[in-house]
């Protein structure tokens, strides 16, 4: 048994976005067979040879402008995106928390959605029933748990997803920009829980645009730009360099 950790070696991820537009239909596919050369290749390199090692107890922040590859990197670490080149290895029980408005059954109640999410995160039914009151309590959703989730606001989805994900007691917690959408009261509660989690010496990888939160939670920060790691070190130093750089370049440049 290898020890808890995330190890990425020369990881690259390439999306072929052209298939989304023309290759997906039979017509487009046949057209592409007939005329292979004319098929536009719209390949986006979301990550380019990223090499990172994260060990037990490390709390790593990810920064970078929108589209820098933060979410992609988290998904690779979670094992959801298989890298298209390089090797990614994650050892430990991973609990991802991404794009929280998806992965819900909109016609079913909050309770039912808690059960489904908890199951998909690896909890057994007994464990779920045991933890259900605590999860419900923590979510603070009260009566709303009886309603179908299609009636929920984005803040309520975050509450539910965060409550479930942190209650599975994972070894590796991967959070993608989740702290922003909850209201003040919930953010406070979430803060307390994050500190409890951090005290246990597990791994946290956390992407955020809130530099204050990063400084608060993370002892190490990785700065991504166009899918490349351009800085990696203690949070205060990386954040300081990022700040001075971001103030100089406030415009977005698309990945070519």
């Amino acid at each position, binding site marked *: 048994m290898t020890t808890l950790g995330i190890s990425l070696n020369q990881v690259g991820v390439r999306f072929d976005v052209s298939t989304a537009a023309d290759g997906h239909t039979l017509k487009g596919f046949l057209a592409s067979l007939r005329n292979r050369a004319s098929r536009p290749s719209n390949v986006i390199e979301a990550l380019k040879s990223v090499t990172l090692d994260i060990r037990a107890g490390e709390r790593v922040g990810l920064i970078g402008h929108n589209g820098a590859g933060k979410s992609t990197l988290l998904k690779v670490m979670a094992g*959801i995106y298989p890298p298209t080149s390089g090797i990614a290895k994650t050892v430990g029980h991973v609990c991802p928390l991404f794009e929280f408005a998806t992965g819900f059954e909109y016609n*079913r109640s909050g309770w039912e959605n808690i059960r489904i999410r908890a199951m998909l995160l690896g909890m057994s039914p007994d464990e779920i029933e045991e933890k259900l009151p605590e999860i419900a309590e923590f979510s603070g959703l009260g009566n709303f748990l009886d309603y179908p989730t299609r009636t929920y606001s984005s803040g309520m989805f975050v509450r539910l997803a965060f409550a479930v994900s942190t209650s599975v007691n994972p070894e590796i917690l991967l959070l993608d920009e989740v702290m922003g959408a909850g209201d003040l009261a919930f953010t406070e509660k979430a803060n307390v829980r994050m500190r409890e989690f951090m005290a246990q010496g597990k791994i946290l990888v956390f992407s955020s645009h809130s530099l204050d939160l990063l400084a608060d939670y993370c002892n190490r920060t990785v700065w991504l730009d166009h899918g490349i790691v351009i800085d990696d070190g203690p949070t205060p130093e990386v954040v300081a360099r990022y700040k001075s750089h971001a103030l100089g370049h406030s415009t977005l440049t698309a990945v070519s």
Partner: protein
Amino acid sequence: MNIYLKLGKDNLLALRNWRVWWHLGMADVRNKFAKSVVGPTWILLNLALWVGGIGVIYGTLFNQPLEKFLPFLAIGFVVWGFVTQTITEGGNAFVFAEGYIKQFTYPKQIYILRVMVNASVPFIIGVAIFFVVMLFMQRDFGLGMLWALPGILLLVLANYLHATIMAYASVRFRDLPHGMTALLQVLFFVTPVFFTVDVLKERGLDFVYKYNPLYYLIEVVRYPLTSLTPASAEVYAAAALYILVLLLVAIFIAQRLDKRIVYIL
């Protein structure tokens, strides 16, 4: 990791986590009949309408004794429904689970098994109704009916592979579920479900069933249940051969698309 090894592991891991797909599948069934007044009784009503309506008309048309034809039609229709549901819903297995696939790390096969659960419920209810029809028509029951069990195993295996192929391929080709729905409608009329093989033989149309793999999948379940003896060896051999072909196709498609599914969803 070797892709074939990974696929094998994923399938096993998915099977081991039966609680997850069982829960998701059963929740789908409940959801399907949510807010419906008669609920799952629709499965019974649907079958009753078929057996009552089509059975009497076609039975007379093809000069079939009703006590033989109605159970034949009932079980044939039930198996057919199982086959078509796994094909059409299998095509949506990954597409509808996109939110889960992009967030959770369980093997994708969980969502194929979820479809299997979802489709098994009407199948099991249908088989029960078949026995009621048999009782009603005062037909004989016997231990030979147990030969349907290996038949059901073959059927489930074939349906799992159907669903797997459809689940993977439909993510890449979104037209596939629509195309299959259209194709299955036609296939229904050329597969011996509401007419017997004898009717075809009399008219020299043997090829209609002989080269139709779905016929064999139906027959391995229907024959023992209606005739109380195992189907002929050729029927089992054809069904097994078809499953082998499906397995090879499924492996071919899955190994090509497995890594890409999450990116093209």
